[in-house]
């Protein structure tokens, strides 16, 4: 039986050539990213094609999504954070749709590769650092020196703040990646139980519906996790962006 990790294998579909040693190719990961972006763009264009004062169900679905993310951003960063809305909304939709597309049986999960989630996280943290320095200059470094702390405690707190800031891109990317990875491995392992129980062809094979029911429950749970992790990624993005906008504690 195939290993539970086989579903994460990246395979080449079309090879365009090589740069030095490394191949330049369209992989299944790249193909699924295109599918995800195509779904998002297609859905958005279809639902806003004929906008009306009284929205039809597609338009109202899109408006609900928009309001959901806009409220999240407004609550944590205030009005001036809305300039980051395109970034946050794109991140939310990309992560959400990539997670949900990964739940289609047989589909490839883009977000189950750490290089993809790390690229998204470094985009967020890079935005925070660059915008923070442009807007506030060296005052941005006040992020690491909270006010109202006793002087003798200040060096320790500063070191801790710097470490916690540096670990943000790692924890932000690892959370999404590991949740997707662990969920899909667990699904595959439970699905494998069905096959191996049926393959015994003895008395034990009548137990095969039990892991099947468990797999159904886990698919439902994984769909919930897919939405939840997209939400958590976006909320944390909003909180980190708030640091760039208001570096003082």
């Amino acid at each position: 039986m195939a290993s539970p990790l086989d579903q994460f294998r990246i395979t080449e579909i079309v090879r365009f050539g090589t740069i030095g040693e490394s191949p330049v190719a369209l992989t299944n990961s790249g193909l699924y990213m295109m599918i995800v972006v195509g779904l998002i763009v297609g859905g958005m264009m279809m639902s806003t094609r004929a906008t009306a004062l009284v929205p039809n169900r597609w338009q109202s679905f899109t408006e609900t999504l928009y309001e959901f993310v806009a409220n999240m951003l407004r609550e944590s960063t205030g009005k001036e954070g809305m300039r980051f809305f395109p970034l946050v909304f794109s991140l939310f939709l990309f992560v959400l749709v990539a997670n949900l597309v990964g739940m289609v049986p047989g589909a490839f999960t883009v977000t189950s590769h750490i290089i993809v989630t790390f690229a998204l996280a470094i985009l967020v943290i890079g935005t925070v650092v660059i915008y923070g320095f442009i807007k506030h200059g060296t005052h941005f470094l006040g992020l690491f020196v909270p006010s109202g702390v006793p002087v003798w405690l200040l060096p320790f707190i500063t070191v801790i703040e710097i470490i916690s800031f540096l670990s943000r891109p790692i924890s932000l990317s690892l959370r999404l990646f590991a949740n997707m990875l662990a969920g899909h491995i667990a699904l595959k392992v439970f699905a494998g139980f069905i096959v191996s129980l049926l393959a015994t062809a003895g008395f034990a094979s009548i137990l095969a519906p039990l892991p099947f029911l468990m797999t159904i429950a886990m698919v439902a749970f994984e769909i919930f996790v897919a939405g939840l992790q997209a939400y958590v990624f976006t909320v944390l993005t909003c909180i980190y962006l708030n640091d760039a906008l208001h570096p003082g504690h």
Partner: protein
Amino acid sequence: MDPATAAASLDAYRFLGAGLACIGMGLAAIGVGNIFGNFLSGALRNPSASDGQFARAFIGAALAEGLGIFCLVVALVLLFG
């Protein structure tokens, strides 16, 4: 010790380490349970205030969960790295 035994015992230590790393995931589960348990007990006493703190509970759970995820990554690196 001959090389084959040495390699086998190294593998055994890797598996032991991966198993030990999983203890940390259980501890993270205690943390997440604490957050949601306290959130629920607070929310049941004052249901009108619970909606406003919903996002904050999830942020805390996500941060606590992240530390457990680090343990999972340590285990995966030990097994497959």
